[in-house]
């Protein structure tokens, strides 16, 4: 029991995920700055930002269901912590709880749903548009993401346990070595981009047209919760891809630890480069893309996996 509390609050969970998420957020800002020939922010910038937000006042809207407004970021933050703990447990300790992947699928939707609820409770026009767009993004990327998750599940003998998927890859080589693995990994990276709201699919939070949409009315500590939750997604989503397709991380030797960190950072940098080299798509073209191209591609990967390629 004590061990699981330690997992939840200290190592892969709350403390580690917040600190490491803010550091990865710095990597994101720094790499973006280098791409644009700038110097970029100092190392502790995200820590300063979050600390400052904790000291600002919270503004509530009088004629609105502000209970929902307050509870939404806290639920989102909690669900992200739980997801990070689950993924981190498999990544660092190699233990699972049995039905990890099913649980992760549900927890990740809770984040989007609380974003929609928090945004639509304000009554702000931009927030409402953002909530509507977020809803459409969930509809479009969810199918492709679940199909992508199916590929490692089928390879590992129809098991939704992350530990079993890792054990399969330790015996038979990484899943990305197979044809279905490569296709699923490519679609997976695109889905992650949409899940996190990074640039080709950041229509919900488009800063230049609907001024951060769902987050517009949030201020102070509640905004800090949203920012932290967003940065913590940088921790667990690439880790999930590493576990599913690249065989996770082993602590056998110094070289294998470095290889694990290298795999993680490679996916993070890939996401940041996609973010910096693409324009924002309209919401209808995003749905088009996911339903007409990404999902059928993922379906092909699933069929290939069933055949055993």
């Amino acid at each position, binding site marked *: 029991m004590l061990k699981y509390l330690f997992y939840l609050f200290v190592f892969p969970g709350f403390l580690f995920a917040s600190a490491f998420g803010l550091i990865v957020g710095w990597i994101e*800002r720094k790499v973006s700055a280098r791409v644009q020939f700038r110097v970029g922010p100092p190392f502790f*910038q995200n820590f300063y930002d979050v600390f400052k937000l904790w000291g*600002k006042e919270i503004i509530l809207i009088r004629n609105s269901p502000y209970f929902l407004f307050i509870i939404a970021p806290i639920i989102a933050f909690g669900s992200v912590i739980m997801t990070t703990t689950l993924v981190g447990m498999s990544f660092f300790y190699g233990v699972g709880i049995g039905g990890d992947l099913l649980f992760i699928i549900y927890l990740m939707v809770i984040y989007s749903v609380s974003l929609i609820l928090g945004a639509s409770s304000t009554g702000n026009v931009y927030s409402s548009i953002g909530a509507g767009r977020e809803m459409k993004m969930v509809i479009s990327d969810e199918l492709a993401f679940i199909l992508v998750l199916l590929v490692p599940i089928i390879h590992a003998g129809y098991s939704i346990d992350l530990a079993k998927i890792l054990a399969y890859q330790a015996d038979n080589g990484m899943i990305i070595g197979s044809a279905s693995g490569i296709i699923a990994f490519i679609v997976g990276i695109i889905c992650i981009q949409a899940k996190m709201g990074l640039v080709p699919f950041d229509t919900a939070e488009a800063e230049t047209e609907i*001024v951060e949409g769902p987050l*517009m009315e*949030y201020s102070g500590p509640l905004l800090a919760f949203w920012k932290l939750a967003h940065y913590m997604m940088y921790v667990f989503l690439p880790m999930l891809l590493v576990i599913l397709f690249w065989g996770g991380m082993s602590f056998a030797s110094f070289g294998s630890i470095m290889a694990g960190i290298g795999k993680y950072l490679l996916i993070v940098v890939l996401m940041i480069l996609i973010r910096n080299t693409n324009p924002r798509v309209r919401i209808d073209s995003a749905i088009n893309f996911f339903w007409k191209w990404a999902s059928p591609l993922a379906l092909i990967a699933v069929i290939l996996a069933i055949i055993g390629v």
Partner: protein
Amino acid sequence: MGLYNKIIKKSIWVFHVSASPCNNCDIEILDLLTPGYDIERFGIKLVGSARHADVLLVTGVVSYKVAPRLKQLYEQAAKPLFVVGIGTCTTGGATFKTSYNKAGIPLEKVIPVNAYVPGCPPKPEAMIDGVVKLLGTLK
């Protein structure tokens, strides 16, 4: 508030309020935010909502039509909040000093102001200097 002031100096989110300007100062502000000056290295970031802002950059002669809206914007932003008046318009009115429609010359007739950066328009370097001097007064 010593530690908090030390931190808030390093993370300043700016909201740009155009209160009936001639657009000259606004273009200089946009110039300030381009990669050439790279104010992100000081932790300064442009945000789209007054709720997220730490500093309001107000440009232009505040007319009777804009004054109540500016006041409302100031009240709706999360405190602690600083206000910087950009351009000579906010201090003395510049070209518009004899206009019939001026509610805010100087700007502190409408909302409390922490610093002014005069100039028509001020250079981006002058604006960075003004914000840095304002932050230097925080103890």
